[in-house]
């Protein structure tokens, strides 16, 4: 145990969750029960678990959108509790929402991508530049003046990713990023995400997607995270004829 402590002291986790418990108001059963997690720099973690098991809740707690009933969340080595502390955290952790329509609220793509940088205090010209760079990085050149609600589902997802990346986060929380995407867009998303020099956690039901992107995988049982075997993850219920692994 002593060895373990010295070992983890070398690389302090980016996120350390200790005994986190959360009960939705009006419910008796906790969604998260004494959940623990150490998440280190450079890690790419997948979380695959049934609906309603508390995956999104975990993300919301990490971002300070929900308040835990007990337990502590330490991010970048400091415990975070108050809204003020979370405001600082949000500049460094980006979260991609399940529904892109929730994320893209500006009329045009450029405005939406520039929204984060402007809030961080960048000048309009600078914010525009960052927004353009981020869009180009994701292969979305020429999307600047497109109207957000007229984008296709796949385009919306990529632009949403751009809005998060434009804030230059160190960690990404991705909530079912491949949901509802066709194979081509999914491949594009996989390419872009694996090229990023970032740590991230992905919630997904998509075996292939996690297989490509996550180094380790968790499932959730009784409100806790449990490691999954790699082999286990890549179990397929459908026959493969079109592609190799």
């Amino acid at each position, binding site marked *: 145990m002593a060895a373990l402590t010295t070992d983890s002291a070398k690389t302090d986790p980016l996120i350390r969750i200790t005994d986190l418990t959360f009960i939705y108001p009006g419910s008796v059963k906790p969604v998260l029960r004494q959940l623990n997690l150490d998440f280190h720099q450079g890690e790419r973690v997948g979380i695959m678990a049934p609906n309603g098991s508390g995956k999104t809740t975990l993300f919301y707690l990490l971002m300070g959108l929900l308040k835990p009933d007990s337990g502590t969340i330490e991010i970048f080595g400091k415990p975070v509790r108050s809204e003020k502390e979370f405001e600082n955290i949000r500049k460094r952790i980006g979260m991609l929402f399940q529904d892109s329509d929730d994320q893209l*609220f500006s009329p045009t793509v450029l*405005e939406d991508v*520039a929204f984060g940088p402007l809030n961080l205090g960048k000048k*309009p010209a600078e*914010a*525009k530049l960052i927004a353009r760079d981020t869009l180009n990085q994701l292969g979305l050149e020429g999307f600047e003046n497109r109207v957000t609600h007229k984008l296709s589902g796949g385009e919306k997802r990529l632009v949403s990713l751009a*809005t998060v990346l434009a804030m230059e986060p160190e960690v990404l929380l991705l909530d079912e990023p491949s949901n509802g995407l066709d194979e081509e867009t999914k491949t594009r998303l996989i390419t872009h995400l694996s090229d990023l020099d970032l740590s991230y956690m992905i919630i997904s039901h998509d075996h292939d997607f996690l297989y490509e992107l996550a180094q380790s995988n968790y499932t959730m049982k009784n409100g806790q995270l449990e490691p999954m075997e790699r082999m286990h993850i890549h179990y397929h219920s459908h026959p493969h004829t079109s592609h190799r692994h």
Partner: protein
Amino acid sequence: MNITEPFAIGNSGIHLLDPRPRVVIAVLFSTITAVLQQFPPLFLAFALALFLVFRARLNPVIVGKRLTILGLFLTMIWLLVPLTFEGELVTRFWKLNIYLPGIVYSAKITIKSVTILLIFMSLVATMPITTLGHTLHRLRLPEKLVFLLLITYRYLFVIGEEYVRLRTAMKIRGFKSGTNLHSFKTTAYLIGMLFVRASVRAERVNQAMRLRGFNGHFYSLEDFAAYRSSGWFLTFALSLLILILVLEWLL
């Protein structure tokens, strides 16, 4: 469901003008038109509005279509007001009295409303809603109202799509709207569900905005320097407005 902005994109002299003076003139011009009482200044205002529509090179068919909607309301006024606004009798039609002040009043309402609609079509509808939002922000309209306008514009489509989805789901389960309690109840559920969904979505949008550092401030990327100088337009519009007011006072 769709909101079309047929006039928003163009390269007429008016489209290229700075949006700020356009909005200011549109508000001034329509307010003045609304309070005019004399016919000569009213006709002058109408002529000015026509001229602006012509300068903005708007598609006359679409302009006509938009005026038709107004026409329905005006028809109601022409049917009712000449019969009820008592004064000098013009003629008797069957057993109905038709009064002169009623006709004059209806005519004024007609000219005023058509003029105001044309002003807004030529000066305000010639910019995208987004630009309008940023312009109002620059003109010091409260941030909350600007957000309300822009976010309504953005989510009207989303809520519209939700409505269509719910409607389809009802249809494929055999729902047909009729005049009975079941129909009323179902429609009430549909509307209620739309409100529930809209408020849940509003909550999520708000969360997503907070995660990106939103603190209630509105930052605009709009670069108003890119527009053509609007000196001539302001001089022209303001001097005509003064002329209209002088006419109103003199007569």
